[in-house]
């Protein structure tokens, strides 16, 4: 039974966990949007929302309480002035967690946690700047990289249309490619061995070396 067991330990000692949550909360309030693992994002949500609720009281005791966790004075100032004002009458639910899929290195599930009331500020700004940059870059690189990418995309689209069949095919391809790679490795090993043998048997003729290959 897991009755009355709340929260996650995040694989940390208590002090390490407190430090992690303090840091995550501070960075979330500073940047309004942070990318982290799903477990940490959900724990941050549990941690930060009561702090924001506390901050809405906007008196000295609340300020001192929140300051125990948010160590950055500038962030604390911003929380009690701008963020609280922006949140207004929202009765809790100040943050949003959106899953992103799995990290390549350790297959950890990633997520973005963001303040709900900072929708327009967090996302579109980045979008405008980066999109303009990317378009310029693509224009510059069009002659080189564009055709290859298009081909790859077309291939992907075709596969996606077939859906399950395509998936099966890809798995088959993967297995076949693995086999091929194994075979190629074997061939390489054999070549290395044969070369070593030839070095040893300089005096012997090529025919005898070939016979040894066949034997092995």
């Amino acid at each position, binding site marked *: 039974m897991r009755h009355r067991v709340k929260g996650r330990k995040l694989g940390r000692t208590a002090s390490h966990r407190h430090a992690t949550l303090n840091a995550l909360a501070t960075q979330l309030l500073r940047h309004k949007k942070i*990318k982290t693992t799903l477990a940490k994002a959900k724990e941050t949500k549990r941690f930060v929302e009561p702090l924001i609720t506390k901050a809405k009281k906007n008196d000295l005791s609340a300020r001192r309480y929140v300051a125990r966790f948010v160590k950055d004075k500038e962030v604390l100032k911003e929380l009690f002035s701008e963020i609280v004002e922006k949140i207004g009458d929202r009765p809790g639910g100040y943050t949003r967690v*959106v*899953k*992103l*899929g799995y990290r390549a290195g350790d297959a950890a599930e990633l997520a*973005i946690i963001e303040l709900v009331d900072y*929708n327009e500020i967090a*996302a*579109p700004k*980045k*979008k405008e700047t*980066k*999109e303009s940059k*990317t378009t310029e870059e693509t224009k510059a690189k069009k002659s080189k990289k564009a055709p290859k990418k298009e081909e790859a995309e077309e291939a*992907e689209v075709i596969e*996606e249309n077939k*859906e*399950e069949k395509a*998936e099966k095919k890809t798995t088959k391809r993967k297995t076949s490619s693995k086999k091929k790679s194994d075979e190629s490795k074997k061939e390489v090993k054999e070549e290395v061995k044969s070369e070593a043998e030839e070095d040893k048997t300089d005096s012997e003729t090529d025919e005898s070396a070939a016979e040894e290959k066949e034997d092995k």
Partner: protein
Amino acid sequence: MPHPKRKISKTRRDKRRTHYKASAPSLSKCSNCGEMKLSHRACPNCGYYAGRSMFVPES
């Protein structure tokens, strides 16, 4: 202490393992760009989720 009387035969072991199967990921079409994506997750191709941009993809 009690012990198994017999070694489990290859057949019996393999019959047990016939139920170990990989399942296909539950994919759906992204409502923004049309690429296949994992459901309940932001689209890795365009960075959109529930009609709004969560992040801007690098490429």
